[in-house]
């Protein structure tokens, strides 16, 4: 089984104040650390597990600047055989254009696959769209929110999709296909610095993204970045920790959940 799995490098923003610059032209990410997209980490792990069981190989693909090599080394350390970097000069905003470029890349380079994995969404822009558009462009069956793979056969898989409220649906899908992988599907293995160092010795192939731009026009345009509208917001409890905690307990008593 050959599995191509997409992996993206994203900024770590959870604890950061994000600043918009140039009157909405850009978001300043220059001081942020970067890491692998959480969802893609689960996708790489799932691909490696399948190949460990049934044989074949995993190819990790990242699209981005030279720095994205970092997530490829990581994927190789986890068990991917190859790492492909599709170099693009600037990030592509429109998920359609992004998927079209990936589709051209896969076709032009004859990348062999039985299954393509993406993550459910990118942590940064949360479009959740690349897998679905790519499937349509490659005319392949598609399923998103995959939270379990119960059976792997040479011509089909039986998978579970996650729906709302804890419900799942079991689906039979023919190969080749594209699946977007939901977080929590597995427990991704630990990757050590040593492992990554060793993975650096495996050659990663670099492709120039502009070779795959035929028909890749953007259909949506970011006008600008803005701060979200503010709601009324919380009443903030400030002061010394002691005082804050006393207030907290006071609120719990007032609400009648603690005596």
């Amino acid at each position: 089984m050959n599995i191509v799995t997409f992996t993206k490098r994203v900024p770590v923003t959870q604890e950061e104040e994000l600043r918009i610059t140039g009157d909405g032209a850009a978001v300043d990410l220059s001081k942020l650390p970067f890491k692998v997209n959480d969802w893609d980490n689960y996708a790489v792990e799932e691909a490696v597990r399948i190949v460990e069981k049934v044989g074949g190989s995993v190819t990790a693909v990242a699209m981005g600047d030279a720095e994205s090599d970092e997530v490829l080394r990581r994927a190789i350390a986890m068990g991917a055989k190859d790492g492909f970097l599709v170099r693009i000069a600037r990030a592509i905003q429109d998920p359609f254009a992004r998927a079209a470029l990936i589709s051209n890349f896969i076709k032009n380079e004859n990348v062999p696959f039985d299954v393509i994995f993406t993550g459910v969404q990118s942590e940064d822009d949360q479009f959740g769209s690349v897998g679905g558009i790519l499937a349509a462009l490659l005319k392949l069956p598609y399923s998103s929110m995959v939270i379990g793979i119960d059976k792997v056969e040479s011509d089909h898989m039986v998978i579970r999709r996650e729906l709302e409220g804890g419900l799942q649906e079991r689906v039979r899908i023919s190969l080749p296909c594209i699946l977007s992988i939901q977080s929590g599907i597995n427990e991704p293995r630990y990757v050590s610095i040593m492992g990554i160092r060793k993975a650096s010795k495996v050659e990663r192939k670099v492709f120039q993204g502009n070779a795959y731009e035929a028909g890749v026009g953007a259909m949506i345009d970011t006008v600008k970045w803005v701060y979200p509208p503010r709601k009324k917001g919380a009443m903030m409890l400030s002061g010394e920790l002691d005082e804050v905690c006393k207030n907290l307990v006071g609120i719990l008593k007032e609400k009648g959940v603690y005596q």
Partner: protein
Amino acid sequence: MSYALVVAEVRRGVFEERNLDSFGLSSLLGKEIVLVVPDGPYSFNERLADTIVKVKAGEEVFLNPLNLVDIIEQVMNGRGKPDCIVFTHSSSGMESAPYVAGTFGLPVVTDVSAINKDEGVFYKSYYSDKIFGEFKCTGQGPWVLTVRSGSFKDAAAEKADAAKVEYIEGVAASDKRVFLEYVEEEKTEIDITKAEFLLSVGRGVGNKDEIPTYEELAGMLKATLSGSRPVIDKMWLPKPRQVGTSGKTVKPKVYLAMGISGAFQHIAGMKDSDCIIAINKDAGAPIFQYAHFGVIADMHKVRDKLKDMLKS
């Protein structure tokens, strides 16, 4: 004809409430509304649509993106292209919208939570609601949109006349992706939806070893411990303890969130709590927008201090 094609989300016989947001957005855009829905005993306010197209197929066939493209093609046949095709931002809309966009070569914007009609722009969240992107569609429509639940439901407006009903007699169902069965979550002894007081921890808890210390705190407060998705994904707490769209919807008297950023999938599961208290070390965490009370602090320090106070 200028119309919005609203693709209904139905699951196990229920017309999901989230569909109201799709109606609301379409109404705000001033479009005539054509709703497409499986033909079945779904109960909803039919007055919200101008036309209802009922598809003679089960919901499992309908909610399959491979089949939905055929259904949409049939709706457009004779009627012409809509201005937009609107889905809920859910397990079904998030799956089908990109596939529909890819099939017909259409622009797609997902997780739309606001619009400015005069300027023809949509807003969607980036970085878990820390930034919004303002989008214009430059390509030819229709635009394919998924709508965040809760964003537009108040704008859903009843029409003066009863909806016209039409039928699609059959669907070319794909054999490449076939629904087999629904799988339900296992029942457990603790039901967080019944708790009056939830102490909920997020990724900010840091690592697995911290979990017992919060269990202890929950015990001292007589609260029930729950968590956000990453905590459940990492198996630090069992799945039935997950709050959010893909977990449980809870409405306790007090929801005390520690180290949770406030992604909409989480908020959707707890926003109707009587009292929400958020503790987070990031003053810009979106959860403070939804909380009644907030504390900017290291959750571990708050935990230690609370434990000290409660012991004495």
